[in-house]
């Protein structure tokens, strides 16, 4: 009776907890496939070992924001993409931080 009532009221907790759990677990074990033709979003082994050797947090300030001609807009987008990639590679995401400002 009580369990039934609890189930009715808090039954949504179980899927939400599972959701968080599954995603946290997935963040440790993952595979990725870079479909771009020149593997643009995959770090080369050289870059990877360089990032691993960093002994202090790195802050990157990018001054690329605002109304640009298309060439610079593309540059701004791919800069942000690359920094995001580095950050995600780091897992903790703490040792590299970046700001894009005008």
């Amino acid at each position, binding site marked *: 009776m009580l369990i039934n009532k609890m189930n009715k009221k808090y039954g*949504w907790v179980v899927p*939400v907890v599972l959701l968080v759990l599954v995603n946290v677990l*997935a963040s440790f074990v*993952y595979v*990725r*496939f870079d479909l771009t*033709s020149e593997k643009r979003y995959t770090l080369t082994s050289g870059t990877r070992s360089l990032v691993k050797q960093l002994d202090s947090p790195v802050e990157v300030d990018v001054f690329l924001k605002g109304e640009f001609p298309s060439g610079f807009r*593309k540059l701004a987008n791919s800069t942000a993409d690359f920094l*995001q990639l580095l950050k995600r590679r780091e897992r903790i995401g703490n040792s590299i931080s970046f700001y894009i400002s005008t």
Partner: protein
Amino acid sequence: MWSVCKKELRQFFSSLTGYIAIVVFLLVNGLMLFVFPDNLFEYGYATLDRFFQLAPWVLLLLIPAITMRSFSDEFRTGTFEILQTRPLSRWQIVGGKYFGSLLVVLIALLPTIVYYFSVQSMASGAGMDTGATIGAYIGLFFLAAVFTAIGICASSFTSNAVVAFIISIAACALLYYGFNAISVLAADSGGLDYYIEMMGIDFHYRSISRGVIDSRDIIYFVSIVVVVLSITNRNLIKR
């Protein structure tokens, strides 16, 4: 399940709803990409990036319009009782409704492949990055899958279609862009903003639409769809 799905599809295309939704989607995308100022030709690069930036916002309005009636109309007209007496489990009903609406969205997305071929034929040099475009379409598919699940869920809360429409727009917008906006507020908290951003759809969508298929992003999208549909399932128990 497939009979429910088929019935949903037939319902969309026997009335004007399905056609209008698809035509509006293609019209808005076509105009923004090829006609209005700041279009693809002025951009000067052979990419469909702008389409993949714009499409989520159009889908944000379009998908709730497609899904708003799926359960709420059944509740309002009382046909849900009839559906319940059928030899179908609740999950089959939810799944049928879900895939029916998702198919309409996919039919709307299908003609946009023409954009790919037209940009490809205009490109000089190496042309477009086919792999990246395929990745972006996979991202768009998962985005549509999440929005559809949210729309179905919202319509299972209420018997009023307009209320369902507004709830699902708000929920989709919150999940798509809301977390991004919150993460900007927490910008100086050292790492926290990154995790908040990670909770939103936009983070994962952008990651896939560059052309990188990452298991983390796929699991994120699939798990959200499953959880939202299980909430829908629970709503049906109460009816």
